């Protein structure tokens, strides 16, 4: 375990970075928390943040998100869709996750990500009540450019308008339940896949170190079911810090979230509907992102529906 942790730390520090498939945000809940979700990752939004985290999911769960980025800007139309499904196989067998995500600007560009993830509880050090989970994802990346009068003669597109590659993510989650702390490491696109048409177009390896704290009741402000997560993300030699908080009110039926990353602040809402007969739970999440540097936009809006099966 120590060796594994150390190896992630080394990976985090030393891997070079270079080009595409940026994390524009997967899921309304994580984005409501500013994208700080690596040390949480406990629902169908989790596989692309940290495959080790999905082992925390106890029921089959599916989520679908649709979002519109930077609304209100004339001339800008960027959309994003996300679908995730978690299938727990049992404590011994681990958990599977399937993800499809796309980012697109109609008439310009589209990129798709398909992923199969697996997370597994590794061991519990009972003496200190430390739970360790590991996970991995195989990802298929594909992007496609649009043909127009300008690109039609560009030699860069002489051999086609799309490119695809395979890559893998690895994650680890160390939870200290009694203390409410979780520590996570994730390394994504570990092989820095090349998705270039003519010249190298490397999707940079992205390494994340995260910590989260959970408490049933945050003192002083009395916020129930409170979670705070901080992710430190390094990609292409640029390091971001993302921080997000979440609290579930109304006996855990209604969530309020807030988050921040360097270029954006965000907030989110969630509402859980239970269906007593089937014990199926439906969760509706909304997230709003407010870019700090961009002007005139009415923000990024994300809406997600999650079904948690009994």
């Amino acid at each position, binding site marked *: 375990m120590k060796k594994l942790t150390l190896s992630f730390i080394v990976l985090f520090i030393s891997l070079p970075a270079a080009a595409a498939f940026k994390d524009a945000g997967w899921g309304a809940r994580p984005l409501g928390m500013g994208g700080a979700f690596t040390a949480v990752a406990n629902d169908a939004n989790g596989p692309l943040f940290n495959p080790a985290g999905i082992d925390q999911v106890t029921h089959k769960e599916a989520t679908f998100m649709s979002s519109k980025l930077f609304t209100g800007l004339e001339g800008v139309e960027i959309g994003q869709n996300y679908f995730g499904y978690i299938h727990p196989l049992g404590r011994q067998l681990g958990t599977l996750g399937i993800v499809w995500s796309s980012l697109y600007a109609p008439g310009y560009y589209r990129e798709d990500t398909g992923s199969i993830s697996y997370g597994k509880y590794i061991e519990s050090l009972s003496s200190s009540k430390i739970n360790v989970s590991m996970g991995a994802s195989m990802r298929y990346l594909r992007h496609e450019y649009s043909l127009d009068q*300008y690109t039609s003669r560009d030699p860069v597109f002489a051999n086609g308008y799309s490119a695809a590659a395979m890559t893998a993510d690895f994650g680890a989650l160390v939870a200290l339940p009694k203390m409410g702390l979780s520590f996570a490491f994730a390394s994504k696109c570990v092989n820095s896949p090349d998705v270039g048409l003519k010249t190298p177009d490397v999707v940079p390896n992205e390494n994340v170190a995260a910590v989260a704290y959970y408490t049933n009741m945050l003192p002083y402000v009395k916020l129930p079911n409170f979670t705070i997560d901080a992710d430190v993300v390094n990609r292409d030699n640029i390091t971001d810090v993302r921080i997000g908080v979440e609290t579930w009110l109304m006996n855990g039926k209604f969530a309020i979230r807030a988050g921040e990353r360097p270029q954006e602040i965000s907030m989110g809402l969630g509402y859980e509907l239970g269906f007593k007969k089937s014990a199926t739970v439906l969760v509706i999440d909304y997230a709003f992102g407010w870019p700090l540097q961009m002007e005139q936009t009415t923000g990024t809006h994300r809406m997600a529906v999650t079904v948690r099966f009994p």
Partner: protein
Amino acid sequence: MIKTRVLFIALLLAAAGTLGYTVTVVVTTQATAFVNFSSNAPNNAIVTEANYILKCQADNTFSTGAGAFNDVAGAPTWVVPRENGTAVIGLIEAFIETGTFAYRTGALQCLDYLKNRQEADGGWSKWYDETTHVRVDSATSPSEAGSVIMAMYKASKMGWEDSSHQYYASAKLAGGFIMACITNKPGTANGLAGAGKEYTVSYSSAPTDARGAYKWSDWSWVSDNSYAYLGLITLRDWAVSTGDYAFARTCNQFVAGILTGMNTYLKNPSNAVWYRVVDGNGVKIDGYSEKIDALCYYPQKYDIPVTQYAQQNIAQWMVDNLQVTTATTTVHQGYGAFMWVDAGSETVKQRRSQGFSEEAWLALVDIPGQTALDARTRAKNWWLDYNNANDIQTSSAPVSYQLWDVVKGGILDWYDPIANAVAQWWERFIDTSANCILVYRGGYDYTAGIPQTTTTVSPQIAHTPIVSVSPITGVLTATGTITASAPLRAVSMTYYSNAVPAPATVSSAPGGATTYHFSLSASPDLSTATTFYYSLHAVDAAGNEIRAPADGYYAAQVARAAQATFNASGGQLALPGGNAFGGVASISIPLGALDSNQTITFLEVKPEDVGINPPTGKYTLGVDMPVVMYQFLPEGLTFARPATITLLYPDDNNDNIVDGTTIDASQLSILWWNETYQQWDYVGGVVDTIHKTITCPITHFSVYGVGFKGPLTDNDYRPKEKIITPATIDNYNDFANFGGIGIDDSIYIYDVTGRRVRELQQGTSRWDGKDQDGRIVESGIYIYQIKIHGKNKPISGTIVVAK
């Protein structure tokens, strides 16, 4: 013709007696040079003959005859212009062979004499006695004129004409005389020259020939017409080389007529050679036309391009009719000699003549085949042998038969072994010496270097006119192709500018080609000129010419241009001139815009200069095409910081409407030519209607134009490129080019997470796909926001980076 010569002598004596003159022939008695005619020493023979010609030249003792070649050494009593012309050619050939300057001097003195002696109608009499000032033979003939023209042109081609020796005018006058002999000849044999003009009074009493008449002109001699042809085609060449093209064409027409006439009327259908003479209607004259003598083969000797009989047949005819090919043992028979024949007396066919042997040799040398070779070899061997006296001494012939006059010099014309007689001392002719030189020079091409084509079809010039010329290069090069029916003689370009109105000419040598790809370059001073004018001209050997344009000149606008080298400190470059309102086209390069020394060229250009085609079909100037264009070089140069360009627009009448359009000047914009997509893209600009300028920042070099853009929309600011490929610099989508960016405007680039990756300031109007640290960004979606100074709402859009 020698017959004629003897007749002249008789006439001279008769005339002199009639007029009461005492004929005095001054004969020098100086020792003669040893003559060695050995074929192994041709130079010796050439020097001997050339020296003898000089010996016959009259000096300044004779006021009117100075320079004339007499037929014998002594006073100029027997000056034949036709022979003088031949003698001049002989001397020039001797000069070429030996470099002896005295031959040049002698030739020029003779030509000066001939020029001074020329009659008012351009001809020369057949014979002058300059001691008595008598035009002895009262007729002028085309033969005299043609021979003198050839001699004068040869001296001219030697480069000997100078202020003291100018012959073209004289030759041109002589050419006019030959033409008069053709046009005034009675009868229906059109094209042929008549025999010339006869005078009814002597030279002394008739200082001008105004009263002469073309009395004998209805007879067309093959000799006269051969000389007429040679004189006029020589003159045609001369006229072309002096630029006297109209006269060259006139000569060409007459030359063509002579050829047609000779082919039609002078060919003898019953043998291999020509009639000696025909009447004015081209009909042969009994007793004259078919007599046998040298005239019958003159067209062969003089290289006249008449329709030829088989040349071998001419040689055979010459051998059969004029050469001694049998010998007896009793007398020296002169085996191989060609005979002196008087067409009126067959008895003199016995006379062996070195003069005629030389003429025959000059005819035979151009005839291939054994017959001609044997014939000319026999002839030359005869005179070599004879003049060395070996044959004489081994035969019973008297020593006095030796033709070289060891006392007086010169070659006696004949001896007759049958009659046991030899020519009188005065029967020697200066052209015999000249022809001897030509023989020892290996023959003589009478039309050397002169194309014989007589076409009247003008050359054609294929040339795309030059629209504008750059004063930076300072060179205007006109190219094209000329096709001609006759060999091209001259191709030239005449040019001037409104600043330097004196025309200048450049030319190239087409080298006689009939298809010539020309490239004529002029380097005029265009520093202050605005319009450059030029015309092209070509002329062929026949004097046919073509001008392009047919009238006037092409006008090429002189583009305003400037060039300077800048370094990182930047600077300003302005086009010279400017407009009448104080506006100056310029580019200002700020500090730090360049990272190394760079030579920058700034030109005002026309669409054709830069390969920009106007839209097909009807289009509106200023709207579909800029009203003015400027090019900045080197093409594609980019600046780290924007440069500012100021361009002029035309509004000479200051009505704020762009000249030639209906566009309000305030609505003008600067556009740039997107070479890759062949379209004008919007740049922007601030119009100054006072100075008639428009100014805007640019970040790269290209062709910029000033045109009407109309009310701006957000899309005018947005880049046309949706996807850029900055990692591959190939002129395709290397940049995102924004329009209308002013110096106070900004462009911001964001990635899909909303992170600002690049900020473009101070008028920078193109994004090179790099982030603020200079790295090419990741592929994927980016958002731009353009903040226009004074506008609250930015203009946004999406741009994708691909690799």
